[in-house]
């Protein structure tokens, strides 16, 4: 994958981070009473960005397309819901490690089964395992069934008797989520640039060659699968914390599909792309829902268009802004430019980002 981006990437991301991070300062003046709501939306986007980023390690970096990633997202939410005391706030000090541990164990078990498969098989087996947990949770009496469960008290961050962070304060919670996102990003950036990341990169390009070179590729993939699952679970936990609610729908395959959309919209394999994708997706959704009750058509067409003309997502636009000639490389646009379709199918594919 990309290990060096043009400087503008760092600049754009830092500027965006600064804008988002300072929202509590300028939001109220600009949006008035709406700013509470916007801050809440921003928090959600930050959480979803972490979720999408975790999936990028699998999809973008290794090339394993998972359609069951919501499994870990939901698992994080449900671990929080079920482990929280009923009449008291849990402490984030032990809740966070617990969520990560549960997710790691689950990812290890599922990973051992699915990691041996590839391509379409990997897609379908991850999908099936996601659905399995979905049914398990939605029929389990202890988990509130299809109605879901409430988490009445947001976990707290305390030191001894004193409250370090008051997470019931929307701004504090926002900064906690933002902090988690930045930490997750830095971790994944470090990971993908490390020796481990280079092996994953090699697996993405040619797994057989890596095996021939003596790498136990299965082990590398399994470790990446677990890391990805743990990060997704942390995102799921934050999502459940935000609204105090966990529901089986968070585990369903539609959630997995949506996070994939964020990934493609943002640009996969870049780690920073999915962050942009999550924001873009949520903003589009908000706009479309305001436009018409038939918004799924608009969303569906947007996804189709993104796949056809923008396969490298927003990140691709930033890394290598397309000139006119570049645009024409998109097979679909090129076909639009011609009257007759080419006689043979294989237009050279737009290979995921390889430069840099």
């Amino acid at each position: 994958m990309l290990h060096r981006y043009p400087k503008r990437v760092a600049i754009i991301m830092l500027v965006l981070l600064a804008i988002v991070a300072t929202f509590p300062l300028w939001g109220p003046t600009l949006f008035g009473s709406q700013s509470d709501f916007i801050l809440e939306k921003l928090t959600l986007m930050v959480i979803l960005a972490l979720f999408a980023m975790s999936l990028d390690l699998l999809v973008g970096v290794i090339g394993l397309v998972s359609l069951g990633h919501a499994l870990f997202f939901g698992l994080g939410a449900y671990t929080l819901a079920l482990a929280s005391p009923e009449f008291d706030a849990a402490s984030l000090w032990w809740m966070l490690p617990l969520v990560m541990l549960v997710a790691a164990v689950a990812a290890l078990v599922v990973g051992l089964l699915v990691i041996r498969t590839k391509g379409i098989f990997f897609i379908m087996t991850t999908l099936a395992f996601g659905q399995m947990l979905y049914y398990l949770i939605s029929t389990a009496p202890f988990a509130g069934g299809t109605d879901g469960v409430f988490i009445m008290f947001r976990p707290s961050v305390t030191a001894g008797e004193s409250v370090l962070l008051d997470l019931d304060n929307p701004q504090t919670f926002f900064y906690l989520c933002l902090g988690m996102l930045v930490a997750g990003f830095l971790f994944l950036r470090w990971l993908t640039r490390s020796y481990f990341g280079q092996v994953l990169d090699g697996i993405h390009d040619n797994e057989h060659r890596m095996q021939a070179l003596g790498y136990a590729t299965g082990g590398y993939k399994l470790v990446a699968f677990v890391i990805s699952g743990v990060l997704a679970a942390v995102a799921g936990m934050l999502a459940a914390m935000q609204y105090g609610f966990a529901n089986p729908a968070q585990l369903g395959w539609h959630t997995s599909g949506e996070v994939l959309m964020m990934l493609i919209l943002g640009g996969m394999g870049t780690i920073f792309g999915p962050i942009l994708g999550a924001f873009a997706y949520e903003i589009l959704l908000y706009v479309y829902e305001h436009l018409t009750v038939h918004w799924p058509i608009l969303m569906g067409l947007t996804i189709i268009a993104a796949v056809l003309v923008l396969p490298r997502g927003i990140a691709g636009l930033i890394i290598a802004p397309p000139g006119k000639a570049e645009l024409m490389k998109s097979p679909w646009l090129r076909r639009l430019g011609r009257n007759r379709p080419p006689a043979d199918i294989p237009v050279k594919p737009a290979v995921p980002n390889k430069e840099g």
Partner: protein
Amino acid sequence: MKKIVKQAALASLAGITLVTSGMTVAAEPVKVGLMLPYSGTYTALGEAITNGLKLAIEQNGGQLGGRDVEYVQLDSEANPSKAPQNMSRLVKGDNVDFVIGPVHSGVAMGMLRVAKQSGAITIIPNAGLEAATNQLCMPNVFRTSFSMWQNSFPMGKVAYDRGHREVVTITWDYAGGKEDVAGFKEAFEEEGGEIVEEIFVPFPDTEFQSYLAQIASIAPDAVYTFFAGGGGVSFVRDYAAAGLKESIPLMGSGFLTEGNIAALDGAGEGVLTTMHYAETLDSEENQAFVSAYEDAYGVTPDTYSVQGYDTGAMLVQALDKVEGNTEDQDALIEALANVELESPRGLMSFSDSHHPIQNVYLREIRDGKHEVVDIASEQLEVPDDACKM
């Protein structure tokens, strides 16, 4: 909500008289937020409720308490995981005065979580989860529909009185189905009947053949069931096609066939259901409602339409009482709680937990219509011991 309260406080501080503040309010429309499914499986329900609600307000000159009405419609997608953020959008983003919704119980859970935090006045026009007006117990939450228990409990006595002693129950393995069957079971066993088998079908499967064979081999006196929408249609048709209807009477909560009689295609004839409404109810209010609804939308109303209509009527009555003042939330809640409706479904008022006290009718499908056989339970109040307002 908070913003409006604050504005009101500021206005009175500035020494503006009550009369003029009342007038400035009158210029601003009442904002009614609708959080209902407009896509997916429950679309028909969302549309029926919306139609009913708008009809009631239209009949009041399109106004509530002398103010114009602005609707904010939001697709809930019947997706519980998005419920809190959607609710939050209506309450904090669009600053609506009321939220009407949802259809789906899982969505209701997510909405009510936000309703609890924000204090937004929420009227549930369908979702029948017991907790909404019992365990969760919020002063700002009302329901104009039913609870699963309310519709199924009366059937227990009916089944026993009709001579059935051994009954098989079958429903989806999800919260709504379990609550419904529990209501029937409670009443039926109280009378002295026995539930010989409780079958739970994975939700939302509609492949019923194996269960029908199971029922046939048990050969109970009757079957009690809860399914809804496509599942209800499939079950009733498959039950009839398996030839079971003649030997083992089929009873169910009204949702089994509600809104879907046409799709049943004759298979539903003779099926008994209990529910808080029937389109054939022989009352002046109902006949007027049915013809007004048919004129407006070209289709016959069903229970969902009535639930929407009564939600609208409830708003009309309460806002008249407070003269369109949505700023004093306590007064508004009190006005809503004291609403009494001569509804198409009959007399309807609200319990202390803000749940409707209403008749539940025993209905039999004859010639493609829900004919009212009897009042299965008059002015039935649901248990709400967990709720102390």
